[in-house]
């Protein structure tokens, strides 16, 4: 009897020790993640805030609060031009998001759920715009849609129709934003549609709902987290884009917040402190949106992946499948073929003066001179090598970190996970141009020679794109039912064992897609690179801006094509590798 009591006590004491050990481990883990976030996010953001509220450069003048005042910030807020830039930003990003959601949702449904012919092609077209850096997209659409010299207007004139397009306008910006940021919505919604249990839709149909009303009353509401996440992400990404409004907005003097900030940093003398203040306005807007998303999504269950096997079902569209097919082809034409043709013309044409359609087909005007010049430049190969190296480091380290953060936020009940969620979302709110300066200010003094290496760029990208990666992984986490993990625990697996044997395999398509996204984003990234690169670590996007700022649309186009082909080859390679490894996981995810 006594022995049994003692035994139970020992057991209780052991489980108490075990529990305490687990608590300690959990606290260490949370502290570890918070420390990383502190270095990557909080410290640079604080230097930025300091910059906005003072008139000093924290590195040059030291971290002092002497000049602290909100006068700088208030001047900026009171400036009517900032108000106008903010209004333009909201109009352009709002309009762009509406188009992006319509396109992204339509094509994810067409690709995943219908029997439309050549779905693979439409799927590819739906993510291809991601390959185009915003600056390149801007340049391509200015070649196509300039009111004076645009190829579309030249073609209208040739065809004798009295039409005229002007992409140097708010509506032009909205259109270009909409078509280029639809892939964000597409990526979220297509994977959600693919992972959705069709029995709910079947139940609706058995109850007499039409296919159309099923779509709007069951399917779309069920994937609402994916729609909202995609919508929010595309809106926020648009908020931070510089290249498109820089090229299309500048000729008609349309400012958005990013182009305004860039102007401030580019003026002579530069006004970084003012730029930091404008950035804070941008951060507030984004912060509100993130809050809104939390409000919309909180308190609902969106679990659609449970421990039951299913196959997504395909809707037989009948003759309508040709309609969706034509829609897909039109999209392909508008987002891929036309801008590519514009870039090809610009890259191979000696000069971009095109009087009429006949001049466009005058082969004497074409040559390889821009490509020769690009490859004659020793910086070209170095920038390609550096960009790929940074991209790989960012994808691997950033992907791993995002997994750790996402898992802690969504799959544990650890104290501090809400703080982790909040902090890891902050970088999305800061435009790259300004956060670039903040990283420079914050990290240049880090002992061990971080400055001047590839790693400072990689760290900046990991920090900047953390929200994108964590959010895109969250959808995967949200969809995995707890019962699967519980099953593993019941079978005696520990936390790490469960992650390795259950969560990781199930979330693998999401993880690989996030890493790929991270790779693409870091190759395209410009804002922070501008401040952090040194002679040894020049990357492609900086060189591309240099060609653009150097006033050579031909070389810009030629180098853009090189960059896009390279991205295509690398991602195609990753896709192929992943497909052979996980039987189509990434293929489905990327598509």
């Amino acid at each position, binding site marked *: 009897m006594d022995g049994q009591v003692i035994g139970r006590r020992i057991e209780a004491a052991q489980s108490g020790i075990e529990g305490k050990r687990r608590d300690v481990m959990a606290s260490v883990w949370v502290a570890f993640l918070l420390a990383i976030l502190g270095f990557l996010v909080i410290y640079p953001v604080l230097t930025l805030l300091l910059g906005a509220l003072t008139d000093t450069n924290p590195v040059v003048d030291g971290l002092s609060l002497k000049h602290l005042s909100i006068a700088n910030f208030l001047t900026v807020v009171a400036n009517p031009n900032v108000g106008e830039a903010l209004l333009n930003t909201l109009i352009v990003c709002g309009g762009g998001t509406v188009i992006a959601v319509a396109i992204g949702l339509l094509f994810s449904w067409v690709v995943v759920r219908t029997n439309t012919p050549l779905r693979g092609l439409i799927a590819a077209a739906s993510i291809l715009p991601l390959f185009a850096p915003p600056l390149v997209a801007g340049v391509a659409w200015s070649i196509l849609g300039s009111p004076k010299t645009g190829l579309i207007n030249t073609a209208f004139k040739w065809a004798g129709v009295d039409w005229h397009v002007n992409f140097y306008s708010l509506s032009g910006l909205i259109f270009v934003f909409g078509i280029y940021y639809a892939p964000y919505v597409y990526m979220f919604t297509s994977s959600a549609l693919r992972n959705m249990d069709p029995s709910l839709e079947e139940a609706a149909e058995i109850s007499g709902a039409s296919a159309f009303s099923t779509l709007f009353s069951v399917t779309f509401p069920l994937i609402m987290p994916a729609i909202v996440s995609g919508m929010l992400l595309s809106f926020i990404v648009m908020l931070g884009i510089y290249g498109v409004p820089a090229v299309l907005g500048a000729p008609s003097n349309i400012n958005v917040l990013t182009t305004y900030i860039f102007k401030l940093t580019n003026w002579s003398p530069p006004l970084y402190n003012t730029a930091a203040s404008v950035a804070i306005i941008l951060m507030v807007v984004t912060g509100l949106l993130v809050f809104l998303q939390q409000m919309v999504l909180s308190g609902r269950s969106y679990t659609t992946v449970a421990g039951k096997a299913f196959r997504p079902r395909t809707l037989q569209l009948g003759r309508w499948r040709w309609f969706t097919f034509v829609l897909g082809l039109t999209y392909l034409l508008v987002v891929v073929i036309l801008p590519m043709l514009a870039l090809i013309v610009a890259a191979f044409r000696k000069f971009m003066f095109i009087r009429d359609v006949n001049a466009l087909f005058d082969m004497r005007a074409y040559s390889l001179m821009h490509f020769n010049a690009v490859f004659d430049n020793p910086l070209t190969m170095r920038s390609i090598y550096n960009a790929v190296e940074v991209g790989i480091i960012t994808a691997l380290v950033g992907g791993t970190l995002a997994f750790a953060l996402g898992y802690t936020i969504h799959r544990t009940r650890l104290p501090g996970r809400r703080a982790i969620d909040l902090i890891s979302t902050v970088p999305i709110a800061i435009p790259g141009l300004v956060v670039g300066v903040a990283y420079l200010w914050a990290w240049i003094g880090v002992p061990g020679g971080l400055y001047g290496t590839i790693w400072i760029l990689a760290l900046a990208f990991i920090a900047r794109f953390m929200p994108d990666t964590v959010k895109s992984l969250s959808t995967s986490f949200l969809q995995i039912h707890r019962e699967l993990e519980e099953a593993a625990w019941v079978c005696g697996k520990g936390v790490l064992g469960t992650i390795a044997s259950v969560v990781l395999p199930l979330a693998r398509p999401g993880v690989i897609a996030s890493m790929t996204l991270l790779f693409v984003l870091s190759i395209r990234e410009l804002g922070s690179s501008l401040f952090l690169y040194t002679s040894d670590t020049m990357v492609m996007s900086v060189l591309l801006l240099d060609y653009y*700022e150097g006033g050579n649309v031909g070389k810009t186009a030629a180098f853009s094509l090189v960059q896009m082909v390279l991205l295509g080859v690398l991602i195609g390679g990753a896709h192929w590798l992943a497909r052979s490894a996980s039987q189509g996981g990434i293929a489905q995810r990327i598509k």
Partner: protein
Amino acid sequence: MSRTFISAIVGIASFGLALAGVPARADENIGSPELIAAAKAEGKMILYTANYAEVEQDVIKEFNKRFPEIKIEMVRAPGGQLITRVKTEAAAGKLIADIVDHSDRALMLPLADLFQDYAPPNAADYDPASLVSPKYWPRITAVWSIAYNTEIIKEPPKTWMDLTKPQYDKLTGQVFAQSGGTTWTRIMFERQVLGEDYWAKQAATHPILYPSGAPMSDALVRGEIGLGPLLYNAVYPKQKDGAPLKVVFPPEGVPANPYATGIPKTAAHPNAAKLYLNWCLSREGQSFMIKEQGNLTSLKVAPVYPEGFDPKVEKVWYPNFDQYVKLHGAWVADWDKTFGYRQ
């Protein structure tokens, strides 16, 4: 004396004269043998410049024809960003640059303490008006012109005043005043030489405003604009490649802006830096930048002039440096107001 002998003398003399007119001479002093040896031993240097990367690559390539052993790495950034980078790196004790090359002398002047004493072998040949500190040298001297697209503008302007004619309404472009030292030089010239109301007259042609000369020159090639004031070095390389562009150097004067280029005290490759700068500032280096890139020079006696520039006709205008510093804020604000450029 036989006629043959006389003609031989004349021949030799004229050959000598011709030689004197040759812009670059191989025997020009670019540095002592010790400096050259030390520079070669360093093997590389890092240049921070506000000049366009590909333009600078051509200068480096030309330098490397003579000194292939010295590798030059470059960080190129627009003026404002370059200054921030230099200040921040210097404050953190991590200034990597061996040479800093900037278009705005006024922004460079407060940083003079960061730079070491340096003078090229031909220092005495430089116009003192172009020097603002004994530490900075005008490696590049950029000059303004009126450029036009020959496919669009059939009656080109001849003077700065012509540029304000109503016939060019909605055809012109301008680089905005805030963009940096070279543009500031031009708008100062416009107000001081062409008249207080010149800006207003120009603004009446509804110019499209550009952040710098390079994208504006591209817009000019494409036909987005027909004409406007542009730095000759933004037009000349395109013209050389056959673009439908021409320039006019107006008789009222052509504003020129000398750069400020110096070697930081912390330079890790000071000898390579000196050699590169010596070469750039030599007659040979200046001649290359004039002939191939459309710059002027701040040498008192120019070795050569860019194509289309007639030194007998053109009056080069340098800003008074005191005014260049003092008038900047107020005048740029006026300009912004006149052109409706939003701050």
